[in-house]
């Protein structure tokens, strides 16, 4: 057991965790942030993607102890003051989700892409989503949603 202090969705958090605790379990079980999902045990599906200090990572492949002192953002922290993030708006507008299970990871991954590449083309988006599996949408509308979000966020040339 050790005490981990960090910021989650802008709020300071401090909790005792076992050294083996995965970040995703810390978020879901300790903090009750169940928007971050677990879809596999080989770190490939991406349902658990969150941001640590602004970059997207798989929270199933990181220990809670490793995020001490960091700022973590989960899907619950995307909207601010009741206003949806453009990526959330875009996923709804473009029907980028069906069952909704992969959606948080997809959106968190998409936000990181747009941060790095303000105007990604279709191929860049598809390649970026290498680490995110969706079984419902065939990715068509996810790609369209991320492209649209990038445009909304001001990147489109």
């Amino acid at each position, binding site marked *: 057991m050790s005490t981990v202090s960090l910021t989650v969705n802008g709020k300071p958090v401090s909790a005792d965790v076992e050294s083996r605790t995965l970040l995703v379990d810390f978020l879901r079980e300790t903090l009750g942030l169940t928007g971050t999902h677990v879809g596999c045990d080989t770190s490939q599906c991406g349902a658990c993607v969150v941001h640590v200090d602004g970059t997207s990572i798989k929270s199933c492949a990181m220990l809670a102890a490793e995020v001490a002192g960091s700022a973590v953002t989960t899907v*619950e922290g995307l909207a601010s003051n009741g206003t949806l993030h453009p990526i959330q708006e875009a996923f709804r507008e473009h029907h980028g989700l069906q*069952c909704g299970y992969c959606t948080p990871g997809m959106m968190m991954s998409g936000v990181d892409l747009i941060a790095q590449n303000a105007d990604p083309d279709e191929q860049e988006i598809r390649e970026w989503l290498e680490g995110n599996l969706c079984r419902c949408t*065939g990715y068509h509308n996810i790609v369209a949603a991320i492209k649209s979000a990038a445009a909304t966020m001001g990147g489109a040339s």
Partner: protein
Amino acid sequence: MNDTGIGAALRRKEDARFITGRGRFTDDINRPGQAYAFIVRSPEAHAELGAIDTTDAESAPGVVAVFTGADLAADEVGGLPCGWQIHSKNGTPMVEPPHPALAQGRVRHVGDPVALVVAETKAEARAAAGLVDVDYRPLPPAANLVQARADGAPLVWDDAAGNLCYDWELGDAAATDAAFEGADHVVTLELTNSRLIPNAIEPRAAIGEYDPSADMHTLYTTSQNPHVIRLLMGAFVLGIPEHKLRVVSPDVGGGFGSKIFHYAEEVLMTWAAKKVGRPVKWTAERSESFMSDAHGRDHVTTAALALDAEGAFLGLRVKTDANLGAYLSTFGPAVPTYLYATLFAGCYTTPAIYANVKGVFTNTVPVDAYRGAGRPEAVFVLERLVDKAAKMLGMDRVEIRRKNFIQPDQFPYQTPVALEYDVGDYEGTLDTALELADWGGFPGRREEAASRGKLRGIGLSTFVEACGLAPSAVAGALGARAGLFEVGQVRVHPTGSVTVFTGTHSHGQGHETTFAQIVSDRLGVSADQVEVVHGDTGSVPFGMGTYGSRSLAVGGSAIYNAVEKVIEKGTKIAAHLMEASPEDVTFENGSFSVVGTDKSVALGDVALTAYVPHNYPEGLEPGLEETAFYDPKNFTFPAGAHVVEVEIDPETGVVELVNVCAADDVGTIVNPMIVEGQMHGGLAQGIGQALLEECIYDDEGQLVTGSYMNYTMPRAADLPYFKTGHNITACTHNPLGAKGVGEVGSIGVPPAVINAVVDALSDYGVDHMNMPATSERVWRIINGAGG
């Protein structure tokens, strides 16, 4: 039409919770005092179970209890029932072996549950499970269809000789023989339909809970049909009457068939919760999903098509061995029989058809319905045969299909394999697809690709599927042990807003939006005034759930009929309020009016009157709430034409999809945005089967493709943008005209992909290849090494 009615591309109501991380999936739920379960599963494909020593596990930290099959037997817990009985062609019923929730006597596949560990935490349960000492005495396995059907094969069940569950037939053998005798050409094909693992991204999960004060059991489970689970588990396994068992399927993260079935873990959690006096939760790890979710497909088939000199189809003969796995899953026996062979007419006028299907036990995970369920297998057989026939006869692939299509004036059309198609326009749908794909421009594109050293091919499939399960009497006559109607309940509240209860279940399909649109359209209230409730036997009257593209055609029709009943009752109330005869009152756009007058009263006022019946028709019950049980008159018959274009890198064998076009006739479209999404998803899964996915067991029955490291799921970069089109003919026998869209992609596209690959490889003397067309298999064909 109002702007939230039928035909509107309304944005989904349910999205609000999913995009903010507030979906409520089973694993998101935690009950007070909850313990955690971990299941010890067999590492052996086939073994006698010797002693199971639980001593060390029981004394491990945090362990609450450890249970084995003996504990279930002592409590007289029943086995998992099968929902469909098939009879062999000689009239004998299928071999129906027991299916205990924890193995007893023998284990029969890798992943077979052997013991249940309940502990304070998941980690403690998992750790203790490793301490359960099981004496497995390995037996030789029947690991696949070929092994299982070989002479002297090990028997999965001692009373299933030759590992046969049934030897079933459909169609007219004599007429088919005669057709072949008189034929000018006979085209034959041997093929497999590859085994798949459904892989909804949400792993299965279950929480059992027992309230002794009310003697009430509650099961939270990742199910596509909570009422079916309540019925099967309550009546056949645990002996709990319906009024003491509540089954809740909250948000479910994809199903694709794999979450229809009644699984052992549902029994174990419900039973264990009462045993240990605490809620007990189990969530599958993905590696468990691979070895415990029902798999799909897995056929070995020999087929032959007889044609006359001009290319007209005269007869079709199909023999299939279908892998059922080690146990019969809920609908397993029905999938390769009534959901498969009944589709062999396809969209063609073939007059004589005979199919013989052997259901085979193997030491593998049970096989059951996976998106398409029997129909993709049938369409793959037909559409590969048709392409091969065109090649053999030197006919154009489009023309041979046109020549054999059932024409619009032939409907209703009785096929030789039990189905009566109500309506369709196959040629119109084909034309839509060919236009989307610029079929005519292909030769130029092939030439251009060749200049880049690439092999380009184009492929086509035209198909019919049977959806809208099902007319209960018909299904019953074919062996179904349940009705297949659906229930809709419409509650108009005193102020005019509406709650709809449906027995179907949405796990991605967007019912909360689509069904609200039906109500909006008919009642004239905005869709945001309509709440759709599903997934809880505690609030929904009854239901058969969501599978087989049935939700709109059957569930939507039930809601439609319930709305009609509301209008009928409302008309009486309105007539009373307006002092008119009910016969003179019409309802439109949310208002009741007296014909030929300017008198009208809004639905909201009628609703209020129904709940505040001070001035009210004599003899009429207060309230405005109606329930409809809708039993369809026939199946529905969505149809489509899919065109796929590929480019192959001859150096590596990699197949790149360059164009995927799907034109479908799904009947009335309520929400075009959702319909497109359903088509996309089905296409992706069909393409997955055609190019990437394959479940492989080795000869020892070990699951080789047991994780995402080697079971290839389609990813974004594997797929292009899809082009979709429609050519709608409304279903003639349900009030919405709906047919179903959930499965068209996975049914229609696999043969189109393979037909395109075979076309691209036409210079290499290949006329068939099995799925998946992996790069190595394609490379082997190009290098003459065999596919």
